């Protein structure tokens, strides 16, 4: 049988993949995609815990679903603004590579 721990491990591995993507890749768009992976890993563990803690009457507790709803909304807003910044940056510098953008580097 599939236990709670299986979902938590899968969610942890997904978070780590996203984290490694943010650390290793140098393309801003790929970094944004890896951020989405990390957000989704958090969503998966929230929903798994919600399914685990059912109410005494045997009904699902929907609070975590509302949290996931909020996370998805904030992620959508974040992607919209982030990609707009990437487009503005590309217009200015013709690159999406983070190592080409070091005007603020001391």
């Amino acid at each position, binding site marked *: 049988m599939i236990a709670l721990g299986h979902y938590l491990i899968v969610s942890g591995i997904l978070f780590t993949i996203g984290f490694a993507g943010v650390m290793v890749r140098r393309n801003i768009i790929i970094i944004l995609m890896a951020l989405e992976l990390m957000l989704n890993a958090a969503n998966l563990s929230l929903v798994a815990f919600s399914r685990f803690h059912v109410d005494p009457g*045997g009904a699902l507790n929907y609070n975590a679903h509302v949290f996931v709803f909020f996370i*998805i*909304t904030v992620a959508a807003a974040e992607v919209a603004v982030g990609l707009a910044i990437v487009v503005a940056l590309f217009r200015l510098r013709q690159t999406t590579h983070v190592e080409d953008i070091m005007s603020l580097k001391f």
Partner: protein
Amino acid sequence: MMSPFLFWMFASMMLVFGVAVVINRNPVASALSLVVSFLALAALFVSLDAYFIGIIQVLVYAGAIMVLFLFIIMLLDLRVEKLRKINWIASAGGLAVALALTIQISSVVGRLGIAKKTFPPLTRSTSDDVHQIGLLLFGNYNLPFQIIGVVILVATIGAVMLSRRETR
């Protein structure tokens, strides 16, 4: 609950395509792998009786957000990245931190007592989850719900302002 075979199939699909997002050199291939990864994640949500979340995962993430990503990739006309000199110190550091995080998470989950328990059965039907989530959203979470509306409005205005061409 889902059968273990389906769980392992969707979980491995999600993780394999998640790795493909990171290691693909072509941004379009990365974005399409991310779509497949999100679809498998939506299947996992459905396996946890979260039908509404699974559906908005497909509609919002695999539909709207990924179309936005692909649109920007096409707009910027990003090709396959040229092979740059890989910064080995940064890559090795990143992978080492990620590996340490994996070990940490698995040891925490391994010690967690409730992690070995299976999911309790549900006695009430979960087919009205949109109704229940709606009640919570407009009842308990009414203020956050309105704040999130303002966040979306600000994000829309910000995106329009940022992508506007300077006309002077």
